[in-house]
């Protein structure tokens, strides 16, 4: 496995997430897409750690561990926001949530 293959793979995963975030109407799918993008970035860190010159330093692995923690916090807050928005607008369709004054 060359490093380029890994990088192309994670770029593809990132772009799938990007397309999902930009095109879908549902707020929850947008959150799912953001999770995909975060995970693609995590994969890149691990790939560079594995192929890097100083693997003993473990910086890549540490970053990913912290990143997983942050992703969990992001998911919790994001979904709480979605639930609050749903309670207010009775929908999670992003095209319909367009008034700034509730």
């Amino acid at each position, binding site marked *: *496995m*060359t*490093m380029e*293959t890994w990088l*192309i793979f994670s*770029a*593809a*995963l*990132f*772009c*799938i*997430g*990007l*397309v*999902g*975030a*930009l*095109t*879908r*109407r*549902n707020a*929850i*799918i947008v*959150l*799912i*897409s953001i*999770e*995909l993008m975060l*995970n693609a970035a*995590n*994969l890149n860190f*691990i*790939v*560079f*750690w*594995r*192929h890097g010159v100083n*693997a003993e330093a*473990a910086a890549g*692995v*540490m970053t*990913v*561990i*912290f990143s*997983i*923690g942050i992703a*969990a*916090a*992001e*998911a*919790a*807050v994001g*979904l*709480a*926001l*979605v*639930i*609050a928005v*749903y309670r207010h607008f009775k929908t*999670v369709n992003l095209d319909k949530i367009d008034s700034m004054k509730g």
Partner: protein
Amino acid sequence: MIMDAPFLIAASLTLLSAIAAISLRNLVHCALCLALTFIGLATLYLQLGAQFVGLTQIVVNVGAVAIVIVFAILLTRSGDSSDEPRFNKGAVWGFLIGGGVFGALGAAINASSISLKAAAVEPSLTVKQIGQELMGRYVLPLEAIGLLLTAALIGAVIVAMRETPREGGRK
């Protein structure tokens, strides 16, 4: 080529389930496909020799994030919105931007001069070493993450909490 078979299987599984996760109509199916993507990524981490990260990925993302997403889907009753169109108004631009970004990234990766080879021996990073790093060099980020998670937890509860009118006072 036969050596790459595990990678090919896991990578295609991950990509296909990721595509399914953003394109299916039923939101619960999307969440389940997301869980499958996480599992596929975890196997890729294991192939790269990052055992601890791969298993943490499953514990946190499959065990917690996917479940929370599923709960949110059920609480917002958006599981069966089959009559609405899936994509938003400006979806074409979204596809174009996504394709453009992938093209740019692919070109950049192909053109880059750094092509590092994987170390011949797998870097052995034991859980003990990770723990010592976390408690040594990375102790400040660790504390910050702890604080962030606590704040996020409290924040999430407060945001999602039902606003009940207080008795005998202004709302």
